């Protein structure tokens, strides 16, 4: 007899709830609490007043908004023409654009930032050449511009791929009606096509905004600390875990991230985007005139060069001996790679260990939540889904501060070590931060599996557990593997929470190792070599994930890209 609270699923739901409560809800709530606490148990707004009273904090706040906003603007400028070319024209360069949609994301922005400094910086390759030939320099890496530049080049694929999906879903009848009524060219684009592509654009733009707003690694590597995330990090680490200003900065970051998520959801809720017929969808494709061809290919090549710049730069740095005030390194060597493999295999192992465990936990929890939502009627599981997905809006630095504060002084049961100093906390941070991606993959995989397959198993005498083990999970394995790979890859390049939670160098994963290496003159070569290794790992993972997903279902490439979000 089915009860309202069947024991096994309810127990699982409670377990997951306990995990999310302990490692997501309570730490974030602690941060919010400290920002509003007056030290004697009461509520106060004085910390917020102090925060906005410090001109540095005000400046950091506006800078963060500015940098995030401008990154969205530039990402849009890059992505929209590319999306339009792909969708509107019969285009042999379509494969190029697809590559452009993936290439920037396989290198984490803080790794590329160092290389971009060498190529586009004050005395970088580009400016040296420009100065020699034309006597001008372009301050494209100066100050906040550098952060905007690096972030826009890294994150534009979010907007690109989401827009392509949206544009491809536009019913051709819409376009035909508009043309029948006399709209052509730019008018058609402005008043029909772009508004119909809005859902994709807004989804991508919101994601770019959040990720740039919360990014800690890139500003630190570029020495730009007048931003919210670096300020929160610096205040908590240099002044102390008691410093309330750091918590205020954290609350502001969380608030804006949640707001961006909510705004994009709200923006799309009011619009009716369903199409009437299920016939031919997508805009009519045209041929390119020679003039348009030149423009289109020219733009694509330009963007391709920009996108490849950090990759080329990091490659040159990893093989270069000395690169100083010159367009290219003086000479080349293999010694950086040799030294990395010889002296730092532990870091590579740490990454594999932490990210492997985190990804495994993610798919287990993700599958469990997906099953609870889609196959059972345990009340309240929607809350689990919502909470797990909300982890997207929590910046890594805030989660780390929450952990350091909540678990301060706790000792690990069997080891003579503080919980906050142990690598287990790093693994938990990765698990929580990457759970939304795994959850999405597992939900998609389970949605595509018809429930009758399970019922057939049960009809033949298998109990629930056996059915799950022998039918559901094997059939979901594609989605599970994709979720595992995505979680693993994105955890492997995570730096924001890692910087705050790593204590001993022994416990450092590759991302922290790269950051550490970049702190000394002789370390930049090995750091770049490690960065190349990290990029290779991510690239392999992306490819594997892509193959698994596209071979198993019709999940579009946009989902692949969304899942890769760093």
């Amino acid at each position: 007899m089915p009860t309202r609270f069947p024991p096994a699923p309810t127990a699982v739901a409670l377990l997951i709830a306990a995990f999310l409560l302990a490692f997501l809800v309570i730490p974030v709530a602690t941060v919010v609490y400290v920002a509003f606490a007056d030290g004697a148990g009461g509520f106060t707004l004085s910390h917020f007043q102090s925060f906005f009273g410090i001109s540095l904090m005000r400046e950091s706040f506006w800078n963060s908004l500015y940098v995030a906003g401008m990154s969205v603007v530039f990402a849009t400028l890059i992505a929209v023409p590319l999306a339009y070319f792909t969708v509107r024209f019969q285009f042999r360069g379509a494969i190029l654009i697809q590559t452009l949609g993936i290439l920037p994301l396989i290198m984490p922005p803080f790794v590329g930032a160092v290389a971009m400094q060498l190529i586009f910086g004050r005395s970088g390759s580009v400016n040296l050449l420009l100065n020699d030939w034309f006597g001008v320099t372009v301050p494209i890496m100066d100050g906040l511009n550098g952060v905007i530049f690096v972030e826009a080049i890294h994150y534009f694929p979010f907007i690109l791929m989401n827009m392509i999906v949206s544009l491809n879903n536009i019913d051709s009848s819409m376009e035909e009606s508009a043309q029948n009524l006399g709209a052509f060219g730019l008018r058609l684009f402005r008043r029909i096509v772009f508004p119909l592509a809005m859902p994709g654009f807004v989804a991508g733009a919101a994601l770019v905004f959040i990720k740039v707003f919360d990014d800690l690694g890139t500003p630190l590597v570029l020495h730009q600390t007048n931003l919210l995330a670096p300020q929160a990090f610096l205040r908590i680490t240099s002044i102390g875990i008691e410093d309330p200003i750091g918590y205020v900065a954290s609350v502001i970051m969380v608030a804006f991230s949640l707001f961006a998520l909510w705004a994009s959801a709200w923006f799309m809720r009011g619009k009716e985007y369903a199409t009437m017929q299920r016939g031919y969808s997508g805009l009519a494709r045209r041929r390119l005139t020679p003039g348009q061809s030149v423009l289109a290919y020219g733009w694509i090549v330009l963007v391709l060069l920009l996108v490849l710049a950090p990759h080329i730069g990091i490659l040159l740095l990893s093989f270069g001996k000395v690169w100083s005030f010159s367009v290219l390194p003086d000479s080349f060597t293999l010694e950086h790679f040799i030294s990395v493999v010889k002296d730092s295999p532990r870091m590579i192992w740490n990454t594999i260990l932490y990210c492997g465990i985190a990804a495994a936990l993610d798919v287990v929890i993700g599958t469990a939540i997906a099953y609870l939502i889609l196959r059972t009627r345990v009340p309240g599981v929607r809350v689990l889904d919502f909470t797990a997905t909300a982890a997207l809006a929590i910046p890594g630095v805030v989660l780390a501060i929450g952990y350091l504060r909540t678990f301060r002084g706790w000792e690990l049961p069997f080891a003579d070590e503080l919980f906050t100093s142990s690598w287990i906390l790093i693994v938990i941070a990765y698990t929580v931060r990457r759970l939304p991606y795994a959850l999405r993959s597992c939900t998609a995989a389970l949605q595509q599996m018809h429930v009758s397959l399970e019922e057939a198993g049960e009809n033949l005498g298998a109990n629930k557990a056996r059915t799950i083990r022998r039918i559901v999970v094997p059939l979901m394995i594609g989605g599970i593997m994709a979720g595992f790979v995505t979680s693993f890859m994105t955890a492997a390049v995570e730096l924001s929470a890692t910087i705050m939670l790593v204590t001993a160098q022994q416990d450092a994963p590759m991302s922290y190792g790269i950051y550490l290496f970049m702190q000394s003159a002789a370390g930049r070569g090995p750091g770049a070599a490690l960065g190349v290794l990290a990029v290779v790992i991510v690239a392999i993972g992306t490819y594997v994930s892509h193959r698994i997903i596209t071979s198993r279902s019709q999940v579009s490439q946009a989902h692949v890209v969304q899942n890769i979000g760093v």
Partner: protein
Amino acid sequence: MSLHQRRHVLRRLAAACGLVAAGALAPAAFAQQTLNIVTSFPKDLTAIYKKAFEARNPGVTVEILSRGTSAAIAYVREQPANNRPDVFWASAPDAFEVLAKENLLEKFNGANPKVPAKIGSYPINDPEGYYYGQALAGYGLMWNTRYMKAHKVPEPKEWADLVKPVYFSHVAISSPSRSGTTHLTVETILQGEGWEKGWNQLLQIMGNTAAITERSFGVPDGVNNGQFGIGIVIDFFGLSAQASGFPIGFAYPSVTAIVPANIGLIAGGKNSALGKKFIAFALSEDGQKLLFEPKISRLPVLPNMYASAPKGYPNPYGGKIQAKVKFDSNLSRSRYYVVNSLFDHTVTFRHKELTAATKAIHEAAEKLAKKPNVRGKQLLEEAREYAYKTPVSAEKVADKEFLALYTATKRSALKTKEITALEEYWGREALKNYARAEDLAKQAAALAK
């Protein structure tokens, strides 16, 4: 994939997970003696010492906790007793003074008798016995020879040179609040020239900077890859860059101090016995010899090491490095946080305005040199006064009550408010002064017709 194949994949996955879990727990099973060192030194140095110490002490693992100096102090302070790291190893002696005052360092008899008592007039080891000098360092100027040639900038010799217009936007420095060595450099200038004259000179130099970097390494890094021309750095940054093959020049100015980099035993560390052993090693001949490694390039405290030093290696005992400043680390400790805060609020966060004012002043001076004008000269002098005004007077900074504001560790809401109000005031005043200076300088330039 058939159902059978999928189950096969699942079994393999489960086995892999099991292996991973075993691998994770294995090190715990063979627990070794662990030594925890918290240090601001770069990986290049710590890796060499770690390897050497582990080679001499089988069964010991050295764990390095890498933190900037201020963050390292905060870290040690926040760990409960018996769970702290064992050794604190950093450049800045005033950081050790801060820790000693908070009873976070443990006294023990670990000095190497062959180390002299003083370098110049500065004691190498802490007179109270809480920490020991492990290496010596001077502060100086490093420059990128290619950059200097390309921009036709002459090589600097003294701090005072850096105020000249020819160095505008070619200099880089880090902030004293984020770099122990920069803090020492700033204190050296302040103590060498006196508080008010020192701030005046400091602000003029800062007006010529292109950037205030986040961590001390940002400066030599920028100079190494040609982003900046000149960096104000601790000597080993310049020396190790030269040794690594970068096109770098380095010089000690005469207003410099040679100050020890120190090592101390943290009170309440997890493995103090090992900590003592490491300190002894670092002070021994074997440990000191490691400082000559090109990637490290620091100056040993043991005088007899210099007999076998590489050719041309600076010798602080040889008398060639003129260290005119007698560094008073008690004074430095007493105003540690004030100097940090003052610098940040008048320089770091107002960098744009300060450099704009300086640019206007240089341009006006150039124009007035070609076409002298009495009123213009007056305006220019006024502009210089406003731009490079000392933010806090010498009397105030010696006032104990004022200093006490900054020394408490737990920040109540009220204290935070007081401090932020004061910092806000400094920032606003600085902004006002720089804007006024820029205005006056532009007026002066307009008069040079």
